[in-house]
């Protein structure tokens, strides 16, 4: 298994502290980390070396039983490593009290792991309470965390986990993991047990969270699509098969194992790697429900397009208005136009956007920001253009990369031949 030299990630933008008091990510270094279970010959994890930069999302992806989960659990020492060192932010944590270590490292697991006998608020408050925060501070923190993961604090505060849907439970799980503001977040197949639509939402949320918080996130999944959506590592049989950017893994898999795991449809999967906010959005003229009819008519006349987007009071897309719609509805806004039934967020992938555009009868979809407010429109044309640009850029990168690899290989062969020559002489 080879480990490519390049280790940049899709999310490793230069880290500027977003909010003054939030803790941003820490670096994680794994040095020769090995786990050998007594009685089995092959180590479960064999000498993993890895450096995770602060604020990165790193995904361990691979088939079941390849040791990705074991590696993750060694970081917070739920599984004690047989040998090797773990350093978080330069501090060697291999031998410190595991309880102390775990309070600095958030941990979210499959099917949320919420304690059923505690309310949502109690679950989230657990870690802050253990670390000795004041009552008032914990209370406001719980509200803040619920708000952060998109749940209404007033409504969900006193609920018990079994009164929540799977997706909501998972959100609370993430809120609990983040409650004490740890620099590092470990996620062990956190979205494995929810339905595909909810999973998609949760992934978008996670990306949004990461944009706001800049934690260092280590994420385990066996779902390759999830992996390329979020981040960037591949591993097999306790070796790192490829540690690279998702783009590179798709366009330039390191070996047959990686390409086999990536599977078919790489071009489509590539769409998962780019987000709506990264492409150029089109703009349509908008009016709000509060505008007087006169303004709406004028706007329709003034703009060259056929359509207007009607926004509601909170500037969320509400209806598409065509020329003539208002006439037919006899000037009543309530009856005119067609309701907007599908929108995508700025953090949605191009694949989601394509899906929405394909199902929309007019071939365009409104893009919304964090609070659902209108930010632009994506249509077939913008999508096509950006995909072409993207593939072209990838192709060039891949050619360059190929070239480098070939040079390296040539050098290796050269050295080997020299080496053999030496032995023959001796």
């Amino acid at each position: 298994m080879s480990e490519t030299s390049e280790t940049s990630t899709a999310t490793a933008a230069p880290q500027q502290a977003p909010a003054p008091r939030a803790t941003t990510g820490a670096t994680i270094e794994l040095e020769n980390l090995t786990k050998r279970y007594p009685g089995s010959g092959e180590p479960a994890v064999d000498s993993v070396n890895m450096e995770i930069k602060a604020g990165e999302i790193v995904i361990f992806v691979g088939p079941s039983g390849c040791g990705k989960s074991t590696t993750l659990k060694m970081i917070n020492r739920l599984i004690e490593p047989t040998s090797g060192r773990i350093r978080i932010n330069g501090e060697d944590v291999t031998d410190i009290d595991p309880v102390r270590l775990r309070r600095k490292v958030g941990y979210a697991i499959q099917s949320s792991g919420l304690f059923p006998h505690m309310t949502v608020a109690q679950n989230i408050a657990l870690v802050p309470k253990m670390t000795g925060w004041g009552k008032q501070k914990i209370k406001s923190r719980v509200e803040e965390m619920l708000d952060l993961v998109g749940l209404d604090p007033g409504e969900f505060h006193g609920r018990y986990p079994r009164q929540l849907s799977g997706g909501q439970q998972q959100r609370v799980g993430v809120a609990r993991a983040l409650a004490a503001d740890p620099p590092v977040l470990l996620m062990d197949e956190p979205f494995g047990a929810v339905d595909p639509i909810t999973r998609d939402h949760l992934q978008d949320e996670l990306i949004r969270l990461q944009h706001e918080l800049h934690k260092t996130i280590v994420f385990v999944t066996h779902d390759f699509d999830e992996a390329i959506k979020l981040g960037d590592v591949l591993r097999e049989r306790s070796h790192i098969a490829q540690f690279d950017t998702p783009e590179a893994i798709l366009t330039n898999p390191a070996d047959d194992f990686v390409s086999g795991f990536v599977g078919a449809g790489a071009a489509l999967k590539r769409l998962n790697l780019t987000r709506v906010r990264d492409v150029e959005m089109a703009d349509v003229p908008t009016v709000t429900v509060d505008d007087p009819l006169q303004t709406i008519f004028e706007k329709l006349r003034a703009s060259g397009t056929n359509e207007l987007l009607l926004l509601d009071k909170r500037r969320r897309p509400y209806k598409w208005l065509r020329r003539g719609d208002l006439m037919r509805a006899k000037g009543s806004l309530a009856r005119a136009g067609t309701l907007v039934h599908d929108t995508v967020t700025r953090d949605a992938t191009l694949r989601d956007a394509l899906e929405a555009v394909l199902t929309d009868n007019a071939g365009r979809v409104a893009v919304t920001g964090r609070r659902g407010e209108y930010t632009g429109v994506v249509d077939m044309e913008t999508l096509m253009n950006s995909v072409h640009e993207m593939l072209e850029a990838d192709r060039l990168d891949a050619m360059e990369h190929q070239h480098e690899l070939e040079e390296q290989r040539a050098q290796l062969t050269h050295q080997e031949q020299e080496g053999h020559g030496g032995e023959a002489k001796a």
Partner: protein
Amino acid sequence: MNFWDYLGSRHQQLLTDAYQHASAVFQCMVVATAIGVLIGVVTYRSEWAGNLATTATSTILTIPSLAMIGLLIPVVGLGVAPTVTALTLYGLLPIVRNSIVGLRGVDPTLVDAAKGIGMSRVHRLVRIELPLAWPPILTGIRVSTQMLMGIAAIAAYASGPGLGNEIFRGIASLGSKNALNQVLAGTLGIIVLALLFDAAYVLIGRLTIPRGIRV
């Protein structure tokens, strides 16, 4: 003298006996619960220790109660001491077994999650494992209490307190006109007490089992 007249004339004595009966059972249950849960907590983690605890306590239960009290008299004397010792020993089995089953039944992913967010061993036990295992433990306590209610009647054999005295007195004077009344009063008294205790447990369950895991 019919049964109601008997109750009317002896109600003072009967109430005292009933109170002593209830109080003996209650105190023994408190001790048995403390010891039983402790044994459960100490042993549930290991396969053989848990089985040993269950087997040992169920062996105690197979000793006939009369024999047990008889055997205890030379050791601890007559009166309250053999009663309390015997009742506590008998009460252990359901509590120990249900504690072990309950604690082992806690979802391992939850224990893992608790560990993962940095809870210490004691913290996990007190905040997560025991609360989640509480419903089966409470059931064990309830079964235990029902059992002790009956067994406590035997205590009168060793001059212990309780409604057993009525029953024994009646049996001793079989043929006399109040014999049947005495046995009946003792037995019915125990049944009423058992039902009252059971109602109390339903209430305790309502109050102590968190809403999130109540079925």
